[in-house]
């Protein structure tokens, strides 16, 4: 088992973001260093306040019908919002979050537009270089 887990966060839907944040937590618990490379729709979800704004919380269209049931179940079970789970993981472990500089240009996003959980921006080559001795997941 490698001690580094790098995740390409491409999806901006809440289901995938929640799974991603939970997996980051598990990796941190097991002593892994985690690096996120946040790109495309993933980066849209990292805009300041997006995770708290119902209008900006997306679900994949094919699962839309489950949205009310999921929301209810998550409330009953006490599931934290994904951003909160990610922040806790970052607080307790070694988690570095990079935004994709190309996506930032594409959507006209400045660092100040993003949640402060983002540590900096990186290009794809830099991320790949950092992933040499890591397991890589795409989310």
């Amino acid at each position, binding site marked *: 088992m490698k001690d580094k887990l790098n995740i390409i966060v491409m999806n901006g839907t809440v289901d995938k973001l929640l799974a991603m944040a*939970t997996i980051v*937590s*598990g990796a*941190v*618990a*097991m*002593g892994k260093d985690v690096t996120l490379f946040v790109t495309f729709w993933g980066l849209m979800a990292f805009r300041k306040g997006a995770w708290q704004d119902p209008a900006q919380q997306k679900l994949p269209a094919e699962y839309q019908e489950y949205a009310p049931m999921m929301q209810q179940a*998550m409330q009953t*079970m*006490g*599931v*934290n919002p994904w951003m909160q*789970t990610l922040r*806790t*993981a970052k*607080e*307790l472990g070694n988690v570095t979050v990079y935004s994709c500089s190309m996506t930032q240009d594409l959507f006209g996003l400045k660092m100040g537009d993003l949640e402060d959980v983002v540590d900096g921006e990186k290009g794809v080559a830099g991320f790949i270089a950092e992933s040499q001795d890591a397991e890589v997941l795409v989310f």
Partner: protein
Amino acid sequence: MTDTANQGTTVKQEIDARGSACPGPLMELIRGIKAAGVGDAVAVLSSDPGSNKDIPDWVDKIGYELVANEDLGAYHRFVVRKTK
């Protein structure tokens, strides 16, 4: 609720993570353990069924000691000693 399994163990901190879902209770335990000194024991209460797998797995991997895992019906109480 103190417990024969805990004989000789003083629990320094008891964390109530009931009502919190995966990975909440484990992360709260890790937070508590980080702040604890070597030799200290930390207890966490969890109503998340996943904790019953996750917390022992974590303790095993990290190499601490699971002093107790008490089934209290609606929740479990895990006592973990920071051994190093």
